């Protein structure tokens, strides 16, 4: 580039001759040069801005176009790297502890119609009614010939029905694939599994959602596509569950009870091996909940975790165990149980107004003396009693993993007076579920550690904090064993399986207040085998009456105990327990001192 000089000699000389200031020429030239420089810089900046603008425009156009395309197009799986073996994104299966299926999915179809495409609506309606007799022909014709563009006809149809509808051959009748939740074992463990139904429904698929029980509690886990191939393993054992339901049903019918429940729990892990509640239902065809009347009359009612009952004398062992634990008494301490005994202006009586006189603590449990346990409770005191029962979990709903369990909140006295303390020591005034009782007895059975009842298979013992010493637990078990050998639960003697347990007979409270004369809840809480406790079994019968004698009998010893004994006889071999000869109990001998 040729640079224009700032002081061109010709013009300077010319200016000097004319007497002008040559500096003016230099200034003028400088100005022109600066203007040129400015214009050039401006051009370059504008050019850059333009290029940048075009770049941004292109980028935004591409992004916008892509977004538009994504929004408009049908979504599709990335074809290049589709998942490997786990393709079905359906709800995960539920199995028992040995891998037997309890709940699975089944592909089926739903039937819907697009009336605009129907060739002959009336014939189609007539033929449909032949296939599905529960449909109404007039209603179908009205729907088919009306203004509707779409209607569901059937939610689930079998392959045979589908073929029959195919044979009608009307293009307006269409099928939508559906995943159906199937419970192959029918009513087995119905209350635990709960049931499932459809959530959002579309033509191509429908959500399967859990509506009750474990299906609802673990809904998120079961619906997570990542768990599609990993079944939910429960702690239940299918065989034991079937056997205990069978025995319980027989027992309920024999004892003329209106309901029954049984819980079998591993005392070290807290795993519930079987839990039955009768009457039950078929989760494949879940009945509707009752809209009126007592909820416990519905087969949907789960007595094991929702039935909040006063469980009667089964509670006495807790008072005795705590008294031993605190060092107030031992199993041989003599307590005067003779009456009258008045607490807070209320007379404490015995069953059939008996009077047992002076009894040892063990004999109080064996004879189930209300006044005896009441005296122990008074010695223990209100606060310590509350603390002990709270540590055993009697103040909160059980953590059992089905949705209904959170509703089984124990009923506690609003004011815990001395009278409450005494009545609670023999199982009145505090209502809890049989599941609470199972957890409480498990602590005695496993040597004094709290376990939480759980529905999931565990890998090893899940022992919680200690609530009583090994020694106390052993003494409590010895007392419970004596109940069977010498006391109210003599029917629980099963050769080879030493059962220890406590009966409980509680009058049912009237909804209007007070108690029924002839309606009882009978419970037998047991531990077996006693020389090496492995399981806790709770059997509760609702309004049983045993009528083989001249007078109807309503005590637990005559109703719940034989049922529990039969259950142990049936399920202990299934659990792999071999019958044993009872070892000579030398625990009593070691307690006595030689000097």
């Amino acid at each position, binding site marked *: 580039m040729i640079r224009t000089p700032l002081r061109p000699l010709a013009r300077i000389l010319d200016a000097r001759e004319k007497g002008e200031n040559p500096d003016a020429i230099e200034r003028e030239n400088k100005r022109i040069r600066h203007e040129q420089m400015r214009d050039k810089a401006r051009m370059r900046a504008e050019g850059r801005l333009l290029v940048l603008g075009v770049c941004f425009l292109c980028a935004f156009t591409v992004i916008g176009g892509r977004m538009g395309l994504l929004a408009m197009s049908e979504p599709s799986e990335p*074809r*290049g790297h*589709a998942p490997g*073996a786990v*393709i*079905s994104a359906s709800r995960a299966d539920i199995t028992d502890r040995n891998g*037997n*299926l309890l709940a*699975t*999915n*089944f*592909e089926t179809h739903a039937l819907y119609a697009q009336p605009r495409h129907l060739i002959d609506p009336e014939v189609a309606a007539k033929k449909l009614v032949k296939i599905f007799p529960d449909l109404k022909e007039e209603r179908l014709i009205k729907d088919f010939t009306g203004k509707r563009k779409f209607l569901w006809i059937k939610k689930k149809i079998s392959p045979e029905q589908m073929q029959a509808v195919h044979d009608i051959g009307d293009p307006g009748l269409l099928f939508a694939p559906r995943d159906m939740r*199937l419970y*192959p*074992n*029918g009513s*087995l463990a119905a209350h635990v599994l709960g049931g499932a139904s459809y959530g959002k429904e579309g033509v191509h698929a429908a959500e399967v959602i859990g509506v009750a029980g474990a299906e609802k509690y673990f809904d998120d886990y079961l619906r997570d596509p990542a768990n599609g191939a990993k079944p939910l393993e429960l702690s239940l054992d*299918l*065989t034991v569950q*079937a*056997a205990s339901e*069978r025995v319980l049903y027989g027992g309920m019918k024999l004892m003329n009870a209106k309901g029954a429940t049984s819980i079998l729990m591993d005392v070290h892990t807290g795993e519930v091996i079987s839990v039955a509640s009768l009457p039950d239902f078929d989760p494949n065809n879940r009945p509707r909940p009752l809209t009126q009347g007592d909820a416990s009359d519905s087969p949907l009612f789960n007595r094991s975790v929702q039935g909040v009952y006063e469980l009667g004398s089964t509670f006495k062992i807790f008072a005795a165990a705590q008294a031993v634990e605190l060092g107030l008494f031992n199993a041989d301490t003599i307590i005067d149980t003779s009456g009258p005994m008045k607490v807070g202006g209320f007379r404490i009586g015995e069953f059939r107004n008996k009077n047992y006189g002076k009894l040892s603590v063990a004999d109080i449990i064996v004879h189930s003396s209300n006044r005896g346990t009441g005296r122990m409770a008074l010695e223990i005191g209100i606060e310590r009693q509350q603390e002990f029962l709270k540590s055993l979990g009697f103040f909160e709903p059980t953590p059992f993993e089905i949705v209904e369990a959170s509703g089984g909140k124990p009923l506690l006295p609003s004011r815990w007076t001395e009278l409450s303390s005494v009545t609670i020591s023999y199982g009145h005034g505090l209502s809890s579920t049989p599941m609470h009782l199972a957890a409480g007895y498990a602590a005695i059975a496993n040597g004094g550690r709290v376990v939480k009842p759980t529905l999931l298979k565990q890998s090893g013992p899940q022992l919680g904090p200690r609530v009583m010493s090994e020694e106390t637990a052993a003494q409590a078990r010895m007392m419970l064993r004596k109940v069977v050998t010498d006391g109210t639960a003599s029917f629980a003697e*099963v*050769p*080879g*399986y030493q059962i220890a347990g406590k009966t409980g007979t509680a009058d049912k409270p009237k909804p209007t207040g007070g108690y029924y004369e002839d309606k009882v809840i009978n419970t037998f809480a047991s531990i077996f085998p006693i020389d090496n406790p492995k399981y806790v079994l709770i059997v509760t019968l609702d309004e049983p009456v045993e009528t083989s004698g001249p007078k109807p009998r309503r005590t637990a010893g005559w109703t719940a105990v034989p049922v529990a004994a039969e259950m142990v*006889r*049936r399920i*202990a*071999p*299934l659990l792999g327990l*071999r*019958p044993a000869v009872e070892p000579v109990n030398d625990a009593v001998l070691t307690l006595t001192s030689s000097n």
Partner: protein
Amino acid sequence: MRTVMYILTTIAVVGLAFWAYRENYATQQALSDADRLHANIRATHARLAVLRAEWAFQNRPDRLRDLADLNFDRLGLLPLHPGQFGQVDQVAYPQPPSELLPITDPVDVSTMNYDALTGADESEEDFE
């Protein structure tokens, strides 16, 4: 020189275009193969699920109990009972094989060629 370069470049472009064309079709073929296989796997999974459900349904405890009752005459199946546990020594194991027959007419056997014989055997085994 320049002409040669033009020709070579053109040939390279044509060659690459042909390669890309073939790769494109090979990829599409592979994708549709994968799709078909996935569909097969899906169908097999569905069939397996149905079979598992069928197995569980046919083996449900109620049905097995009814079958055991129906076929009681032939099978005589009863629920497991505590009395059915036994001791190991109650198991009738097969008798140990009786002792060899007494040798009444002994024959002298030489062991001189024993090593050679066993060696021959081993080599045969190796050969196999």
